[in-house]
């Protein structure tokens, strides 16, 4: 497999959606290919950072109040 094909497998590898044989090929490849190794490492870091920039928040009281108001006025009498 060449680098182009290896790069195509990177996401499946990260998600553990990869077949065993392909996984082994990829792991062997990155041992000898700096380029693919760095693409894998930096893709993983990109995901790590992406998760860090989003934080779960509680619904502000005002928004929650409006939500229930909007639902209740639709209740069938």
């Amino acid at each position, binding site marked *: 497999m060449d680098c182009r094909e290896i790069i195509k497998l990177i996401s499946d590898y990260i998600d553990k959606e990869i077949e065993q044989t392909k996984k082994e090929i990829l792991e062997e490849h990155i041992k000898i290919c700096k380029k693919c190794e*760095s693409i894998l490492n930096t893709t993983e870091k990109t995901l790590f950072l992406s998760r860090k920039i989003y934080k779960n928040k509680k619904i502000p009281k005002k928004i929650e109040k409006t939500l229930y108001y*909007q639902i209740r006025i639709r209740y069938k009498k």
Partner: protein
Amino acid sequence: MNEIELVERAKAGDNKAFEELVKRTQDKIYNLGLKILGNREDAADLLQETYIKAYESLQNFEGRSSFSTWLYRIATNFALMKLRKEKYKKISIDEIKEASDGSYKLEISDWSNNPHLQYKNEELREILNEAINSLPPKYKTIFILHDIEGLSLSEISEILSLSIPTIKTRIHRSRLYLREKLSEYFKRKGN
């Protein structure tokens, strides 16, 4: 009471049961809205529209998927509609394809141990945030659902009625595109 029982009761006209379903899922839906749409006003709209639609079409919910998957479906459809109207400059599908296929010269320097690589680095967060916001709507939605919210491929497939290979391709391209944007940043910083 479990979700299925609550749905049954709500369908039979028990509004308290419906409100309990709202209570159990509202934080998830609100946060999904915040992440995809990026601000409180739009997230509040998404929240309201999702539950109003859910209430009004409750009789059509047949329970083939879970109630929360069904809600996600309503919410993502609303988000997609909103994103398509947004003025935020989006990259083209071709650009994102380029970033992940061999015709594009991938930036290969390894910055995974760069000292600037800290999530507290405001500049870096800004660049990443901007790059995520510039993803075409159908890529951004999947990226958030999978890589941020942690939904499985099969859940996303149910929510968006798309095949798993299509979802995988979009996730892969989004990731490589975002990686490329960060690589450019580190290159400017002199890695």
